[in-house]
């Protein structure tokens, strides 16, 4: 019987990066970025320009470094002991490692939605306004406006407008994830990071979140990590393929999925290695 999983193609790893972004400015510029968990190097010299107000998908097999890179974009990895990096990540012209930048203010600019929805055990209303309250905003008119704007932005307003003071935990899985998106956009971040945002959702809830992602890109620069190829093709404008901590290919999504430049990308997206 043939092996179910084939070994990755043994060939020197090359990188193809198409930086044409149809006149859109590069909003996030990753430059020669390497990242280490202690002695283990997780990312190798990544250089990548992410355009503004587009959806960029990170794909690749487990352990390829895509989530590590995503979590570096708002310095989430700073919380882990023994990490270090080289190279730089520049957002809107300024390094996120600039010593004058506070991590908290960076995370206000770079919102994040996680794989598993994580609403707080509070009301729907309080979940959405939580980031504002943390930053000292308690004016009711501002909070009310934020709740309506954010829930509308997350395509949840019509479903919950009559029960804003019920627990966020009373919502369905898909609604909870959209509540987390509403919370992530409440502070009007510039960038929205999404780490497998639909992996725990049913197909209908997934479609709603994907439609939402397409709408949100009018306002935000979105970076999404996904294992779901169909999701990457449906949602993203550009796709980056990572393997063993290296960027193999970055190009427009239709190009990556119809005619990738690198054989490793082709082998991965056609299911020739897992």
């Amino acid at each position, binding site marked *: 019987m*043939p*092996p*179910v*999983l*084939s*070994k*990755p*193609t043994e060939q020197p790893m090359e990188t193809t990066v198409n930086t044409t972004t149809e006149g859109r400015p590069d909003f996030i510029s990753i430059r020669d970025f390497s990242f280490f968990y202690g002695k283990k190097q997780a990312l190798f010299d990544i250089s990548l320009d992410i355009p503004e107000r587009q959806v960029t998908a990170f794909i690749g097999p487990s352990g390829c470094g895509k989530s590590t890179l995503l979590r570096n974009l708002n310095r989430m990895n700073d919380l882990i002991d023994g990490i270090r990096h080289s190279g730089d990540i520049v957002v809107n012209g300024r390094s996120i490692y600039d010593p004058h930048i506070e991590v908290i203010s960076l995370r206000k600019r770079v919102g994040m939605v996680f794989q598993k929805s994580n609403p707080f055990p509070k009301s729907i209303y309080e979940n959405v306004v939580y980031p504002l309250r943390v930053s000292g905003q308690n004016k009711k008119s501002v909070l009310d406006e934020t709740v309506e704007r954010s829930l509308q932005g997350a395509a949840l307003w019509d479903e919950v407008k009559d029960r804003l003071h019920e627990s966020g935990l009373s919502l369905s899985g898909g609604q909870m994830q959209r509540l987390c998106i509403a919370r992530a956009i409440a502070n009007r971040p510039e960038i929205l990071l999404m780490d497998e945002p639909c992996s725990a959702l049913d197909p209908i809830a997934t479609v709603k979140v994907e439609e939402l992602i397409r709408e949100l890109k009018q306002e935000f620069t979105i970076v999404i990590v996904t294992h779901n*190829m*169909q999701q990457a*093709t449906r949602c993203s404008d550009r796709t980056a393929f990572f393997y063993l901590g290296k960027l193999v290919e970055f190009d427009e999504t239709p190009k990556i*999925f*119809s*005619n*990738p430049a690198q054989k490793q*990308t*082709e*082998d991965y*997206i*056609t*299911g*020739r*290695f*897992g």
Partner: protein
Amino acid sequence: METPRHILTNFETALENLRNDVLMMASLAARSLDCARKGLFERDEDWCNTVIADDEEVDALEIQIDNAGMDIMLRYHPFASDLRNVIAAMKTSVNLERAADQAVGIARRARKLILQPALPEIARIEPLFDTATNLFKDAIKAFSDGDIELARTLKLRDKGLDEQNRSFAETLADLMQKNPDSIRGYLELIFIARFLERIGDQAKSIAEDTIYAVEVKDIRHTSIPN
């Protein structure tokens, strides 16, 4: 370099079956063209009837390939070369079915010609048969082997067949004035030449789809082959 196996062996089998069905259809269509030729030149109605009867099998295969291609896309969501190969297989089957229909057309016209006295001008259509048959068989070979160089030659060669057809029609139009008693037979020959010319078009389309599947270059409706 050996192509690594797909993580889903069922997918690999489905893709191989689809390809085998296309090749089976191609060999049936090529056989129909050969039989139609024998029917015409040997004045043998049996060969003509074989072509007409075999068309049912070709039609059934076209439907089978459509369903199998749809099934593969639904179940496995192929990407990149896999996606292009599935699409090329489905498009090629449409061209093969049409080519087989042209063979049926030739067989029907040949049956009518057999009922009339033999025309010496029938020899003039033989070069068209040669060109069309070679084009068709080379298109199938290019598809089967993924032979881009061979596929690239088809576009220009199809133009040559178009020219042969035009010239043949003009010659027969002249002969019609000289031999009005043979007009009916000449008309049948003109129709047969047109069927052959269309087989060349189908061969060219198969070659274009092969080039797209392998090289992702769309050379349809371009004047100069890339």
